C-alpha cells in the first residue's frame, strides 16, 4: 500500500486502495463456494423436475428399461448432491476447506452434466424426430440454464456443460446424417461460447466479491480506527483531568507553602508570587507583577551582579540549589535568603519561565554564628580558668611546694581529678561539635605505629595506676607505618586504654597488640573487664553511651569517647569495633590501612 503522504497544504492525500490487497483471496473463494452451494437446491430440484418431464416424454421409445435405468441414475445423483449440500451446510471451516468443497462441487457438476450427456447420447438415436428435437432443445436449455447456476466458477461450469455436450456431439457426428454432422460442428462452438460467457461472468462475480470484502475490511478498519480514536479521546480526557488536578495541587502547594515561591519570565520579570513571598518581602503580588525581580528584591549595589547571574542561568538552563543571596525587603531591611532556581524549558530548549523558591535564613545564620561564638567562648573561657585550677592543684599535689597534710592532699587530689574530668568533658563536647559541623581537620603524617603505641602506653600509665591496672604490649612488635593524625590517634588510644583500665579488675594487665589483616593493621586493646552487656552492644559507639549510669558515676567519663573515636578513625580511612575475648573481657580494636 502507498504510505499516506502529506501534500503541501497539509491535507492528507487520498489513499489509493488496491482491491486485490485489501480483500483476502481465501475469503473471496469461500464466498464464491458459498454462492455456488446456495444455488444447489434450485439446481437439484430443477434437474429432478426436468428429468421427470424428460422421462415422461421419452417413455415410448424402444428402450423403456434404459429410461428407467436413467431415471434411477438421476435419482441417485440427486440424493448424492443433496448429501453433498447437507455436508457442506454442516461444515464449520468453510473458509479453510473452500477449495476442497469447490472440487466436490466440480465433480458433482460433471456427474450432473454427464447424466444429461448420457440421456442425449443414448436416447437421441433411439427416438423419433420430434423427440430428438425435444431432446436437443432440452440439452440446450440445460447448458444455457447452467450458466447462472455455475458461472461463479467457470471451470465448474465447463465441466458441467462438457458433461452434457461432449457425448451428444459424438452421437451427432457419428449419426450418419449430414445435417447432424453440421450441427455437431456447431455444438462445440456453442459450448465455447457458453463457457466464455461463464468466464466473463466469473470475473464479474470475482471482482464483486473482492469489492465486497475490501469494503468489509475498510469498514472493519474504520470501526477499529473509530474505537481507537474513542479510546484515545477517553485517555486524553483523563490526562487532561489529571493535569488539571495536579495543577490545582501545585497551586495549592505554592499557595500554602511557607516558602516564598516566584515565577519569573526569562527576562527576570515577576509573573507570579505566592502569599509567603508577599509576606517575606512586604510587596503585594498585584504591585509586583511585571516588575523586574532582579532589581526590586536585591540591594541596589548588587543588581548588576544579579542581572549577570540571571543571564547565566537562562543561558545554561541548569537549575541552581542552595544559592545564598542578600535581599532587601520593602522596608529596606536586608535579609539573607537561600534560593533554588529551576528553569522550565520547552521542547525547543527555550526557557519559558523560572520557578524561584526562597527561604529567609537570616535567623538561622545568626544562630549558627552565635553557636560558633559560644563554642569558641566555651573553649577559651572555660579552659583558661581550668588551666589555673588544675595547674594550681597539680603544683600542690606534685609536692614541689613542700610537704602537705595527708587529708589536704587527698582533697586536692580529688579536686584535681574532677577538674581534669570537667576538662575532658569540655574537650569531648568541642570535638563532637567540630566533627558534626565538619570543622575538624586532620593532619595526617607517616607514623611508625609501634612507637605511637608505646607512647600512648607511657602517657596512660599514670591513669591506669589509679585503678591498679598494668598496661603492656603483647606479641612481637612490628615495623608498620600508617598515615594518620598523630595527636588524634593518641587521643583514640588514650580513650581505649583508659576505658580498658577503668573496667578491668585490680591487679590485672591490659595488653595492646598489633596484627596485619588484608593490607590493614589492626590494633587491639584487650581488657579483663566484665564484657559488654547485650543490650548495650548496638549503641556503644553512639553519643553519651555508657553501659550503666551507676558505672558512669563510679568510673567517670563522658560517654562521648567512643563516638569520637569512631568518627576520627573513619576520617582516617579506618574502622573500629569490639569483640569478646575467649578468656573473658573485651577487645576493642581499630584498623588503619597499612602503608
Amino acid at each position, binding site marked *: 500500500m502507498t504510505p499516506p503522504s502529506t501534500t503541501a497544504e497539509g491535507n492528507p492525500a487520498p489513499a489509493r486502495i488496491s482491491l486485490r490487497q485489501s480483500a483476502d483471496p481465501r475469503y473471496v473463494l469461500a464466498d464464491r463456494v458459498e454462492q455456488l452451494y446456495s444455488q444447489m437446491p434450485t439446481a437439484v430440484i430443477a434437474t429432478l423436475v426436468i428429468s421427470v418431464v424428460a422421462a415422461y416424454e421419452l417413455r415410448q421409445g424402444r428402450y423403456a428399461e434404459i429410461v428407467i435405468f436413467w431415471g434411477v441414475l438421476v435419482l441417485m445423483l440427486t440424493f448424492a448432491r443433496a448429501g453433498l449440500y447437507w455436508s457442506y451446510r454442516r461444515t464449520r471451516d468453510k473458509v479453510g476447506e473452500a477449495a476442497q468443497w469447490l472440487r466436490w462441487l466440480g465433480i458433482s457438476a460433471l456427474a450432473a452434466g454427464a447424466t444429461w450427456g448420457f440421456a442425449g447420447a443414448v436416447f437421441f438415436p433411439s427416438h423419433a424426430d420430434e423427440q430428438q428435437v425435444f431432446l436437443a432443445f432440452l440439452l440446450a436449455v440445460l447448458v444455457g440454464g447452467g450458466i447462472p447456476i455455475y458461472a461463479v466458477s467457470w471451470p465448474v461450469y465447463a465441466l458441467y456443460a462438457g458433461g452434457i455436450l461432449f457425448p451428444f456431439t459424438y452421437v451427432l457426428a457419428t449419426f450418419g446424417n449430414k445435417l447432424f454432422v453440421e450441427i455437431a460442428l456447431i455444438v462445440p462452438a456453442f459450448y465455447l461460447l457458453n463457457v466464455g460467457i461463464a468466464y466473463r461472468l466469473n470475473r464479474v462475480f470475482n471482482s464483486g466479491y473482492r469489492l465486497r470484502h475490501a469494503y468489509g475490511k475498510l469498514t472493519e478498519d474504520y470501526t477499529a480506527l473509530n474505537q481507537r480514536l474513542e479510546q484515545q479521546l477517553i485517555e486524553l480526557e483523563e490526562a487532561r483531568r489529571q493535569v488539571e488536578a495536579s495543577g490545582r495541587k501545585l497551586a495549592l502547594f505554592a499557595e500554602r507553602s511557607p516558602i516564598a515561591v516566584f515565577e519569573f519570565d526569562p527576562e527576570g520579570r515577576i509573573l507570579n508570587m505566592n502569599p509567603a513571598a508577599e509576606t517575606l518581602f512586604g510587596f503585594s503580588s498585584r504591585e509586583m507583577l511585571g516588575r523586574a525581580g532582579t532589581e526590586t528584591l536585591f540591594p541596589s549595589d548588587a543588581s548588576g551582579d544579579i542581572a549577570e547571574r540571571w543571564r547565566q542561568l537562562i543561558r545554561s538552563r541548569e537549575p541552581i540549589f542552595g544559592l545564598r543571596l542578600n535581599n532587601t525587603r520593602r522596608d529596606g531591611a536586608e535579609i539573607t535568603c537561600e534560593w533554588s532556581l529551576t528553569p522550565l524549558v520547552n521542547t525547543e530548549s527555550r526557557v519559558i519561565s523560572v520557578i524561584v523558591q526562597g527561604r529567609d535564613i537570616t535567623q538561622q545564620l545568626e544562630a549558627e554564628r552565635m553557636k560558633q561564638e559560644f563554642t*569558641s567562648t566555651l*573553649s*577559651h573561657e572555660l*579552659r*583558661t580558668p*581550668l*588551666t*589555673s585550677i*588544675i*595547674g*594550681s592543684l*597539680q*603544683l600542690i599535689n*606534685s609536692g*614541689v*611546694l613542700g610537704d602537705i597534710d595527708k587529708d589536704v592532699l587527698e582533697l586536692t587530689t580529688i579536686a584535681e581529678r574532677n577538674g581534669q574530668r570537667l*576538662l575532658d568533658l569540655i574537650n569531648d563536647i568541642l570535638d563532637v561539635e567540630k566533627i558534626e559541623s565538619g*570543622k575538624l*581537620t586532620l*593532619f595526617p603524617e607517616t607514623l611508625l605505629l609501634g612507637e605511637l603505641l608505646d607512647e600512648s602506653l607511657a602517657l596512660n600509665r599514670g591513669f591506669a595506676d589509679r585503678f591498679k591496672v598494668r598496661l603492656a604490649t603483647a606479641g612481637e612488635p612490628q615495623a608498620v607505618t600508617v598515615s594518620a593524625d598523630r595527636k588524634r590517634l593518641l587521643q583514640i588510644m588514650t580513650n581505649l586504654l583508659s576505658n580498658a583500665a577503668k573496667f578491668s579488675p585490680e591487679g590485672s594487665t591490659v595488653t595492646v597488640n598489633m596484627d596485619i589483616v588484608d593490607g590493614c593493621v589492626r590494633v587491639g586493646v584487650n581488657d579483663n573487664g566484665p564484657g559488654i552487656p547485650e543490650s548495650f552492644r548496638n549503641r556503644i559507639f553512639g553519643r553519651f553511651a555508657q553501659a550503666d549510669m551507676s558505672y558512669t558515676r563510679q568510673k567517670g567519663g563522658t560517654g562521648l569517647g567512643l563516638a569520637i573515636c569512631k568518627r576520627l578513625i573513619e576520617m582516617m580511612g579506618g574502622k573500629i569495633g569490639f569483640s569478646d575475648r575467649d578468656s573473658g573481657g573485651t577487645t576493642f580494636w581499630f584498623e588503619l590501612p597499612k602503608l
Partner: protein
Amino acid sequence: MPAQPLNRICYVEDDEDIQRIVRMSLEKVGKMTVEVVGDPMVAIDRMIAFKPELVMLDWMMPGMDGPALYRKMLETDAVKALPVVFITAKASSRELDELRKLGAAGTISKPFSPRDLPEQLRAIWHALP
C-alpha cells in the same frame, strides 16, 4: 640542638593567675629563670632587657595577641632569632600550621600541666636546630 641547657625564659601572658602558676612551675619544678610580662605592648623591650633563651607567648591577649606580637618580633632584629612557643586554648589547626610555617618553635595547648611544662619546653628546646 643548642649546646647549653634551657634556663632563661620570657613569658608574655595577661592572666595573672596563670602567670603565677607558670612562674612557679618553671622556677620550682624546672629550676629555670623566668621573666613574666603582662602587657604585650612592652614585651619586646622587656625581652631585649632580659635576654631570654626562649619566649612563651599567650595566644589571646587584649591589645595585641600572640601571633601579632610574634610578627612584630620577627621585624625586630634584637629578638627575631629567639625561639617562640605559643600557649593556646583555642587556635584552629590551620592557624597553628601557619605559625609553624612562619618559624614558631612549638605550641603548648591550654590547659597545660605545670608538672610537665618544664619538660615540654625542654623537649622543644632540644628539638631546635
